[in-house]
């Protein structure tokens, strides 16, 4: 018997096909509050189907309405007809920029609902408008401003945002608002004989009662108290001492057929439906940060991070909702009117109602509005936009040196080498395993000698052992999360028996900052065996706990302030990322820009660094969905994003790896990573022709770094993402609303559609609905688009990437291959002037030292390049000008929320074009210009630099089609003017005139 049992155990261990362990994670039906929330919407739908009325039990007591005399806010009492004795309070504010904040909480309740989620997400308390006023009527209270109007109906409670009288966002329009109030637990009735406890197929226990009592609230709440006081899942019991406290809210977009956002899910960018007759998925989208082992490439399951932000879009309007909630949340999506409206139903486990309505009306406005709330992506260190080479694990300092040597031998660029958990002795982070890494500082210096950096992992689980000073200190200071009984929370992770740093404790920040100090501290641990070139990777911060419920923390464990983990679960990962970022920033004086990668994130995480999409699989569908996930994260603020190139699990064949590098170089964050069980796959290990193809791909990323960095400057100020889906750039182009496999890089005019199909030789690309020409980036052949958009077929052999320059763009590149990006700092630029249909083009370049905060006090170069055509046909003159944007838009150059406190405020007037950084690159030239789409061969090409005379330039001409050619055929070679070394520098104003 024993042997039989063991044999079957061994069989169970046989590695089966890669697949998610879905039994480890709850479906909605296995989660008490989600079940209750969905049952509520089912009852409402049934009532409507039966033509019975369904009226929300919540209403405003109009007598309690109190409108602020000084700003655009009011408060009012809300009552529920179900529980007349329970009090709720409602508050509405209209911010200066027109964003509406709706807050509702239980008043004088038995306990306090968690109300701090927004305080972690927001960069500051938003300014409430002083100009807008609320006007109370008999049935409602209204505020009108510009095209917008907010109407709050009293009975039933309903909040509507309108633009030009058209409903944009409606809260509780479907009557699904329900805030479960705190209550005392009734003594459980003894299970009488005759009653039986049954277990249904999903392991849920219900008490079958013989005689159900009549429940007057059953029409709304259901007959039974479903999992009010404790809840079982697999072998875990969540004790739920506070009882039911969930929050249900319907958010309706009556005139928007597309919704995007609420990352992170492995799904399409335009969110598919989860309810209604033709729902794509059966389960709602879930936001519950989780370490999902071998996750599915197409699912509503929750993943590592959660941003409760949803865009709703139509050809004439974009609006958004930010639901500042930190607890587990499920979101159902349906289209009540197909291709016209979208209804979302948000079901959260705990917390107050705190919803921000972003009025738009364009995607750009939404990004600005959201950025004013949660901040923008911090301008990253320039080197962090280079190529990151990671693996679990480079096993020793000799290994790291050998890998670097191989890159250099092959002349393949790379900026960062990463170390996963095996560098740490017994997975005690910070503590080097001296058997394999005997000389960590020397190793880092060897890497730094060619301008490179190292990124080393630091996870939030601390090994519970007296030999680990970091744990010892945290334990002594009581900086660790507590279990429900008040002791240190203990769980199992890489380091074995571990405890977790509680970043909600405000005292933890200084302590954590101290751990990263490079100098020795008296009596406390600090990481002296590190250098300023070591940056950090935060993994497992969901938190991932191998033996915890759903591979995470028990929800009844306790954080600082007595809050339960359930209240803050989705915020938890962001705080660890925040503190680590702060620690790296404060490590040196003056501060250096930190690079900290996180796996878990929340609204606002963009301020602290990059994220990646976690442990993906080396499959074609994971490669494809990675692009969609990066786009979804990008529009939700988390734009410094990427997926592991090659896939974390598995051994991708060379073709797949090549294609994955093509995807990777177009991700804001570009890292190759691999699981410990996989074969090594560094690019230099590939056979030809794959090795040369990947080398060229990597070099293309480096050539385009000026474009990426310029795009990052823009996002750091405006919130507009670095990679942009079609609807963001062309919000009126209906055919592009579902597109999520091609996208634009910043405002550069670069459009890419990475190939993610095995064996592909051709790709189909959608050109936007506009009268414009698109040039193939590599071959310079032209494709005209039309005002109704156009699908084109382009060649896409393994060494080809469908990559286009939109006419009307000037692209700045640095074409010289180097070992790492810091070594390109003095390299000359090449300008590709892609003339548009009307003979115009423009582009931007932003540069600074890339590592310090000197840019915050004006040390930068921000320039605009403009091409214009004057005159007609044969007499036309094309002028290409270099202009200083500092002089015209200097105050917009950098994010006004500064890390440092520079002595001077930046403005256009105070901007000094001869700042220290500009001086340091004053000799950097433009080495070449390529003008695409000129009408005819020029007669002369001259450069004029201010203060110097005109100079005749050397140039070559290649016949081809003109941008303005109305009969242009797809794939016809564009004319090319190649200007050799115009002897102009990048920081100076100049004009190059091309006389046709």
């Amino acid at each position, binding site marked *: 018997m024993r042997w039989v049992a063991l044999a079957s155990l061994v069989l169970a261990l046989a590695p089966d096909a890669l697949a998610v*362990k879905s039994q480890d994670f709850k479906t909605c039906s296995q989660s008490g509050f989600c079940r209750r929330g969905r049952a509520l919407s089912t009852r409402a739908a049934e009532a409507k189907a039966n033509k019975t009325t369904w009226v929300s039990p919540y209403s405003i007591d109009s007598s309690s309405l109190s409108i602020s005399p000084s700003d655009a806010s009011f408060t009012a009492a809300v009552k529920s007809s179900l529980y007349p004795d329970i009090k709720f309070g409602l508050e509405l504010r209209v911010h200066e920029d027109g964003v509406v904040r709706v807050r509702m909480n239980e008043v004088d309740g038995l306990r306090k609902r968690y109300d701090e989620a927004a305080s972690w997400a927001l960069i500051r308390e938003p300014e409430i408008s002083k100009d807008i006023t609320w006007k109370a009527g008999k049935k409602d209270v209204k505020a009108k401003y510009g095209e917008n109007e907010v109407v709050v109906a009293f009975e039933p409670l309903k909040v509507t945002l309108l633009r030009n009288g058209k409903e944009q966002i409606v809260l509780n329009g479907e009557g699904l608002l329900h805030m479960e109030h705190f209550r005392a637990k009734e003594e459980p009735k003894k299970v009488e004989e005759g009653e039986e406890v049954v277990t249904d197929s999903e392991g849920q226990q219900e008490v079958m009662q013989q005689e159900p009592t009549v429940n007057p609230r059953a029409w709304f709440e259901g007959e039974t108290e479903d999992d009010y006081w404790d809840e079982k899942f697999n072998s875990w019991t969540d004790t739920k001492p506070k009882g039911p406290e969930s929050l249900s809210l319907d958010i309706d977009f009556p005139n928007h057929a597309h919704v995007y956002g609420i990352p992170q899910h492995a799904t399409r960018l335009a969110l598919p439906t989860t309810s209604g007759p033709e729902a794509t998925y059966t389960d709602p989208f879930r936001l519950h940060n989780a370490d999902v082992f071998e996750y599915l490439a197409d699912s509503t399951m929750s993943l590592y991070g959660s941003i409760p932000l949803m865009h709703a879009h139509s050809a004439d309007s974009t609006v958004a909702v930010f639901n500042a909630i930190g607890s587990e949340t499920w979101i159902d999506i349906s289209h009540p009117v197909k291709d016209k409206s979208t209804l979302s139903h948000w079901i959260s486990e705990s917390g107050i109602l705190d919803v921000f309505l972003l009025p738009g009306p364009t995607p750009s406005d939404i990004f600005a509005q959201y950025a004013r709330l949660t901040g923008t992506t911090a301008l990253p260190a320039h080197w962090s936009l280079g190529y990151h080479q990671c693996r679990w694990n480079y096993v020793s300092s000799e290994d790291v040196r050998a890998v670097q040597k191989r890159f250099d031998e092959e002349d393949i660029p790379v900026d960062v080498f990463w170390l996963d958990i095996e560098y740490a002795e017994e997975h005690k982070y910070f503590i080097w395993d001296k058997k394999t890494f005997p000389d960590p500082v020397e190793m880092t210096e060897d890497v730094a000698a060619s301008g490179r950096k190292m990124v080393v992992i630091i996870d939030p689980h601390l090994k519970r052992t007296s030999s680990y000073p970091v744990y010892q200190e945290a334990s002594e200071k009581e900086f660790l999360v507590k279990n429900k009984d008040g002791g240190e929370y203990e769980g*199992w992770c890489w380091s074995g028996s571990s405890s977790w740093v509680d970043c909600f404790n405000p005292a933890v920040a200084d302590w954590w900052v101290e751990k990263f100090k490079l100098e020795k501290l008296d009596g406390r641990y600090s990481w002296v065996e590190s250098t300023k070139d070591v940056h950090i990777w935060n993994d497992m911060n969901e938190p991932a706990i191998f033996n915890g419920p759903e591979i995470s923390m028990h929800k009844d464990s306790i954080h600082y302030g007595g809050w339960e983990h359930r209240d803050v679960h989705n915020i938890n990962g962001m705080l660890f990322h925040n503190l680590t970022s702060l620690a790296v920033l404060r490590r040196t004086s003056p501060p250096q820009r930190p690079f900290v990668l996180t796996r878990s994130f929340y609204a606002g995480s963009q301020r602290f660094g990059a994220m990646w999409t976690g442990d993906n699989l080396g499959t074609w569908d994971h490669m494809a969905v990675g692009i969609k996930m990066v786009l979804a994260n990008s529009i939700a603020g988390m734009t410094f994003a990427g997926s592991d190139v090659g896939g974390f699990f598995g051994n991708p064949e060379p073709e797949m790896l090549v294609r994955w590098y093509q995807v990777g170089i177009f991700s804001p964050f570009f890292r190759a990573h691999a699981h410990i069980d996989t074969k090594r796959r560094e690019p230099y290990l590939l056979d030809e022709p794959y090795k040369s193809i990947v080398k060229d791909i990597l070099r293309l990323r480096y050539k385009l770094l000026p474009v990426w960095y310029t795009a990052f400057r823009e996002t750091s100020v405006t919130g507009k993402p670095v990679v942009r889906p079609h609807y963001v750039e062309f919000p009126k182009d209906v055919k592009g609303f579902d597109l999520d496999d091609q996208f634009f890089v910043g405002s550069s005019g670069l459009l890419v559609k990475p190939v993610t199909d095995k064996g592909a030789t051709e790709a189909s690309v959608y050109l936007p609905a506009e009268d414009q020409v698109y040039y193939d980036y590599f071959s310079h052949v032209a494709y005209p688009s039309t005002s109704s958009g156009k699908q084109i077929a382009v060649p896409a052999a393994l060494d080809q990437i469908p990559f286009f320059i939109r006419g009307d763009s000037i692209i700045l590149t640095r074409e*010289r291959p180097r070992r790492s990006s810091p*070594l390109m700092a003095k390299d000359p630029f090449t300008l590709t002037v892609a003339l548009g249909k009307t003979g115009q083009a423009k582009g931007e370049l932003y540069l600074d030292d890339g590592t310090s905060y000197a840019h915050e006090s004006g040390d930068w170069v921000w320039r605009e390049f403009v091409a214009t055509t004057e005159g007609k046909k044969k007499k036309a003159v094309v002028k290409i000008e270099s202009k200083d944007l500092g002089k015209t838009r200097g105050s917009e150059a950098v994010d006004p929320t500064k890390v440092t406190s520079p002595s001077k405020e930046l403005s256009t007037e105070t901007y000094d074009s001869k700042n220290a950084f500009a001086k*340091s690159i004053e000799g950097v030239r433009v080495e070449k210009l390529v003008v695409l789409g000129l009408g005819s061969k020029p007669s002369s090409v001259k450069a004029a630099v201010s203060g110097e005379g005109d100079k005749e330039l050397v140039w070559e001409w290649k016949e081809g089609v003109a941008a303005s050619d109305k009969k242009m055929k797809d794939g016809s070679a564009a004319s090319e003017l190649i200007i050799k070394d115009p002897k102009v520098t990048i920081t100076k104003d100049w004009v190059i005139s091309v006389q046709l």
Partner: protein
Amino acid sequence: MLSPWLILSLLPLSTLGALEKTRGVPPDLLQKYAPAKSGSWKCLDGSKEIPWDFVNDDSCDCLDGSDEPGTGACPDTYFYCKNEGHIGSLIPSSRVNDGLCEVQCCDGSDEPEGVCPNLCKEVGEMYRRKMAEELKLRKTGSKIRSSYITYAQKEKKRLEGVIENTATEIALREKEYARLKDIADRTESLSAAALAHKQQSPLYLSLLDHSGALKSLQREHQKLVEREKQLSNILDTLRTGYNPNYQDMAVLEAVRGWEYIAGLPHINDVGKDNANDETVSDEEAGIVEDVQEEELEEGMWTKEELEKELGDLLSTDYVSLLMEHDEHVSSPPEESMIFDIASYLPESFLPQYEDFKDTLVSWLAAFGIIKGEEGASADASRARQALQDAENVLNKAKRDRENAEKDLEKLFDPKMFGAEGEWKKLDGTCLEYPSGDYVYELCFFGESKQKPTKGGQTFTLGRFSSWNSSPDVQVGSPEYYSKQLYNRGTKCWNGPERSVQLVMTCGTENAITSVQELEKCEYQFTATTPALCLPVDSNGNGKAGSREEL
């Protein structure tokens, strides 16, 4: 090394202005860098004609990049550093004007003037010193190597001696075998018929059946024990190292199941690192205890007895047993025939017979087969045994000769001990290298092992399979001997069979210098050995001193 930023900030930009046209041109191409009479210049690939002014103007004009030997403006070209006072060197164009002073360009010519100091005097000296040291090392090494060759020569002689000697011994042994065969045949003829009859006894036949069955059982038992051991190892490894799959409930169940069966405490309850030397408490060891407490029936063997004594039982000489049995069941024993036979012989034969008997008895006694008077059948079987032994000795001698012949063949086989036999000396030499919680062992031409220092299982990392098997490496070349492959080691759970790649360089000692597991279960050892130190020629060159070695 200076940080790149430091150097960048010093970079004087004007120096990029007018460059020497031959900057960065290697000596063998110098004559090609001169303008034509027309003042133009042809790209080296002939593809384009450009003004001479365009050469080294920091702007790439030629498709092959040949117009910019000195600026790095053309990708994937090379820049030549003269390194006067040292050795000239070619570096990739990606290193030119990148703000870093290349080690390969000690003259600093890879960066604009004034950026990098000229260190060629010092570097050159250091290099020459280093080369001298290396030469010394190589000389010492090659002396040791020649002693290896001498050893191989001696070994050759020894083996030839062995072959010669074994030939003599084989002749002797063959004679002795013939003599014993004669004795055995004669002894056997005395009782062959009787023995054949006795062997028809159902008891004897049944005994053979039992023996056969027992042997089969023993074999099956051993297989199962081996299998259990392997499974236990797999499960122990899983239990102590399951982190990556702990998220998988099936793995957790397996670990718990194993802990229950093996009577181990749950891994969460013990320090993981102590999992190997944990002590099992009585309570936890429930199942194991149960088994041990089980009472044995009368006459049943314990586990230890089964392991240690079953083999002895199975090697019982059943024929002897049959004879003894015979004596037990028949009435009072008669005198042993061999001693009694005299009574039947005529007087005149007696002296010869006594001689023969003495010889036989003393011989048998010498082999410890008989102790004085015993039955004739026993004599027969013992004589046969003696014959068998003699045959064994003969065969061993034959094998010795064959082995010696084979060894002699391998001695100068380039695929084994090298054309000069220089590797023979290392045959069976074992090197050890402690790393982490293991000691790595490698016995040349034998086996490589990973031995844990804190208890646990020793794994075979592989056995010698070949020298560098890369197709572009010639058998017998120095590169061929710089690498050995050891493969077909213990299979990794969820991975390949373990293997070792031994990468060797010339050194005065045989020693492993590093051990790395570059891929899962694929190890790379580096080692030094004098066997790779080729003789140094009169110019002081061992191998051609290449520029890449700088």
